């Protein structure tokens, strides 16, 4: 289920790191999707790159949902990544629920569904109880997963080399005094349905500032979907090379992106 993002991260690594290619693991059909958790602008960039990478390099049919229309993509890429701009949760639910109807008119159903900024759709009035927002999150997530399961079945019937339909969505947790809240009940609900989380974690440590970097981001996968992967034992991921990347932005605008190596486990 992380295949599209893994492929993208590996391809965008700085040249010195690109020799350490990770094997792209096709997702298991029963697994649903990846939730990109973190800051909104970087989250959208990750989703857009994932959409373009999937459409152009992996020949995957993509559908992209975002409340605010994408205007930064060139026209040619906008054709590869058709985007829909539902204004409300109700409209988003109707458009996702209606994807089975488009299978009657389009020859190949989408195999990647992307939803940008779930929080824009889920958040209600400030005085609303947490339970209502949680229920909305569960309905939307379950509909996305159920739709992906249905489209996976169709892809298996229609194409010679079937690949499961994937879902990637982004979510920015609620903030408490400048930090992301650790007890975001909506995020807990989303984690029930999205079994892999891709965290975009900004490094605010003294070390990053001392190195003269404007911004440092750590990007890593976590969640039950990774350990559940039946192909995990066959991967060529080297011991000590975790699925973790670092994005460094320098004050002059230079950007470095590469894999982060974690210390090898103690052989004892």
């Amino acid at each position: 289920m992380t295949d599209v993002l893994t492929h993208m991260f590996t391809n965008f690594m700085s040249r010195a790191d690109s020799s350490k290619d990770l094997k792209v693991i096709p997702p298991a059909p029963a697994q649903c999707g990846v939730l990109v958790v973190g800051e909104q602008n970087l989250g959208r960039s990750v989703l857009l790159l994932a959409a373009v990478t999937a459409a152009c390099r992996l020949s995957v049919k993509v559908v992209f949902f975002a409340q605010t229309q994408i205007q930064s993509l060139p026209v040619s890429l906008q054709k590869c990544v058709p985007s829909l701009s539902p204004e409300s949760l109700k409209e988003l639910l109707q458009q996702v629920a209606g994807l089975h109807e488009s299978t009657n008119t389009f020859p190949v159903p989408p195999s990647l569904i992307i939803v940008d900024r779930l929080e824009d759709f889920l958040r209600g009035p400030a005085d609303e109880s947490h339970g209502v927002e949680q229920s909305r999150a569960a309905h939307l997530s379950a509909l996305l997963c159920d739709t992906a399961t249905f489209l996976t079945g169709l892809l298996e019937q229609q194409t010679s080399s079937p690949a499961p339909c994937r879902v990637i969505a982004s979510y920015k947790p609620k903030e408490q005094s400048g930090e992301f809240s650790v007890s975001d009940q909506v995020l807990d609900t989303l984690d029930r349905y999205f079994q892999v989380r891709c965290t975009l974690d900004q490094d605010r440590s003294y070390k990053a500032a001392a190195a003269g970097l404007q911004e440092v981001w750590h990007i890593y996968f976590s969640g039950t979907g990774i350990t559940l992967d039946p192909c995990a034992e066959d991967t060529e991921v080297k011991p000590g090379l975790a699925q973790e990347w670092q994005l460094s932005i320098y004050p002059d605008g230079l950007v470095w992106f590469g894999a982060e190596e974690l210390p090898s486990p103690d052989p004892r």
Partner: protein
Amino acid sequence: MPAVLPAVAEQLFRDIRKTYQETAQIPDDLLIALRFVFGACAVQALDLVDQRSVTCLSSPSGRKAFQVIGASGSLYTCFTSCHYCPCPAFAYTVLRRNDGLLCKHILAVCLCEAMGVTRMQSASDEQMTALLSGTLL
């Protein structure tokens, strides 16, 4: 807790399916196992099964959804591939308190499917879209 059932629950449904196909009943040991795994909602779900409260709707596109008539007469549209029910018990017990695997409606769907006693009904693609999005109750 993920939105998929633990292996023990999946195995239980497989055992119920096999036994029900052979004997047209669920023996006491499997009923006790159901009560053990799912708690109090197992009995309520069996009530819904007895009342044939579960209907599987399918549309020409091949999309399916389950509707369950609750004890109060309310109609709930449930997803089974990843477990979701719009009932208050699912929102409170499963989502908020993380205190149960399923609500009685989803469990009733799983049991009806295992026993092969789900009622079937057709719907148009447009009706299915409205049903899944929650705009048609």
